[in-house]
């Protein structure tokens, strides 16, 4: 693993140390060590089944929700182990938000979607909620499109708008980190470009980690890229994900250090 070649990261927000994830006795991904810097966009790329989404979900303990899932190694958020016994998974998820492949607005109004998190956190004053909803929708570059129909159902928005609504809902609770699991794979190029622009605008405030199947997208939006692949276990013929290379995006896409990265991104892989 050539992660050591990545230019020095001084302000680490998330860190995985020798992280392995098991589903029952199946090892889905093994020995991943990676540091995610503050204020940057980090992209995870690799083939299906290489463990990139699995690692992403470890950062806010979403894997806890999968039966039989077990984690070995450590995941640290600001040097605190998020898997230690007294850590509160809800608190972890409040600070580390998530946006999914398929936009998943609640079947409520646009306003209520964004206000949902703050309300759960105990905010009920109408004026405060309105301010947060406006700020979040502006932050997600959606305000101008929906400001006159905040009471309409979120389900009536287009796919790209729904995805930006989900981003607004995530940032309404002022997280520190946004995890994005293929947030644009169901969107057309214009909606995709909007989300990508938005990511650039908000990355100073929210550290972003994005899983993407689109290598050009990783190249366009991210500051650093991690390439994952799979290893086949010769005994069981099952595949385990590993982290191959982690470096600045510019370096990884112009002069990758590992042959496997080169083969994958140029399309010459076995």
């Amino acid at each position, binding site marked *: 693993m050539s992660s050591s070649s990545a230019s020095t990261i001084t302000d680490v927000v998330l860190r995985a140390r020798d992280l392995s994830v098991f589903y029952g006795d199946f090892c889905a991904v093994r020995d991943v060590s990676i540091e995610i810097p503050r204020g940057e966009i980090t992209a995870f790329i690799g083939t299906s089944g290489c463990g990139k989404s699995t690692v992403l979900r470890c950062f806010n303990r979403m894997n806890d929700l999968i039966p039989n899932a077990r984690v070995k190694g450590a995941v640290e958020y600001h040097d605190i182990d998020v898997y230690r016994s007294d850590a509160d998974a809800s608190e972890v998820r409040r600070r580390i938000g998530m946006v999914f492949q398929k936009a998943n607005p609640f079947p409520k109004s646009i306003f209520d979607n964004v206000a949902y998190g703050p309300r759960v956190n105990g905010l009920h004053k109408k004026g405060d909620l309105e301010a947060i909803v406006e700020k979040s929708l502006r932050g997600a570059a959606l305000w101008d499109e929906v400001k006159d129909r905040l009471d309409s159902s979120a389900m009536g928005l287009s796919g790209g708008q729904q995805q930006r609504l989900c981003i607004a809902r995530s940032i309404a609770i002022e997280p520190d980190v946004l995890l994005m699991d293929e947030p644009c794979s169901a969107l057309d190029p214009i909606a995709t470009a909007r989300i990508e622009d938005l990511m650039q605008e908000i990355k100073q405030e929210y550290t972003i980690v994005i899983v993407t199947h689109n290598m050009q997208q990783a190249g366009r939006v991210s500051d650093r890229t991690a390439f994952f692949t799979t290893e086949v276990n010769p005994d069981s013929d099952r595949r385990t994900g590993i982290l191959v290379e982690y470096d600045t995006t510019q370096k990884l*896409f112009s*002069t*990758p250090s590992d042959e496997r990265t*080169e083969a994958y991104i*140029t*399309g*010459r892989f076995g």
Partner: protein
Amino acid sequence: MDELRKGFHHELDEIRAESAQLIEVVIDAIPRATRALLDGDLDSADKMIRADEVLNGRCLELEERCYRLLALQAPVASDLRQVIAIVKIVSEIERSGDLAVNICKAARRIYGHNLNSELQKVITEMGEQATQLFTAALEAFRESDAAKAAAIDDMDSYLDGLQRHFIRVILESHSAGNINVQVAIQLAVVARFLERIGDHAVNISERVRYFVTGWLPENLTNPRSTNSNDDTDGIPFFEE
């Protein structure tokens, strides 16, 4: 190894083959140009001047194909470096072709003047050395051999030394009354043209190193830049 994007990789291979063929055109042109100069063969010189149009056209077409790949295929990693390197190499080829043409034009201008054996010898030697540099650059390019490419810089130092020697011989021949000042000036620029052809071969080899390893020439440590305080490159002046 399985391969995806076969059409793209095939086009990349074709572009590479065409680049090699264009380098061969220059390798062929250098000795022909010096021969035309030494033999006063104006027919051959005219043919070469006209043929340069064809080289220029092929260079432009190749450049266009590179841009098409960049625009449509979004190459990355070694594929990207190869396309970028070829875009740069094409201009080195095109420029070297122009320099060979300039030598042919000098052949017209010195037509009818005899060159003594010492002048003939050093022109021949410079032409051969420039050709060798281009041949070595082509080998490094074809074989993606960064070490071979890196060695070409030393060969160029020898060519630079020959140029200084050539100028000395020109000055001596002029002082001895063997050639007039017009011929002396024409030969001095021919020396410069051949030396520049060598530099273009070095540039090609640097681009080979870039596409093989990602190495980029660093201006501060590049000897050809650090010598730039000396505008004369150690070339003697006329002392009259």
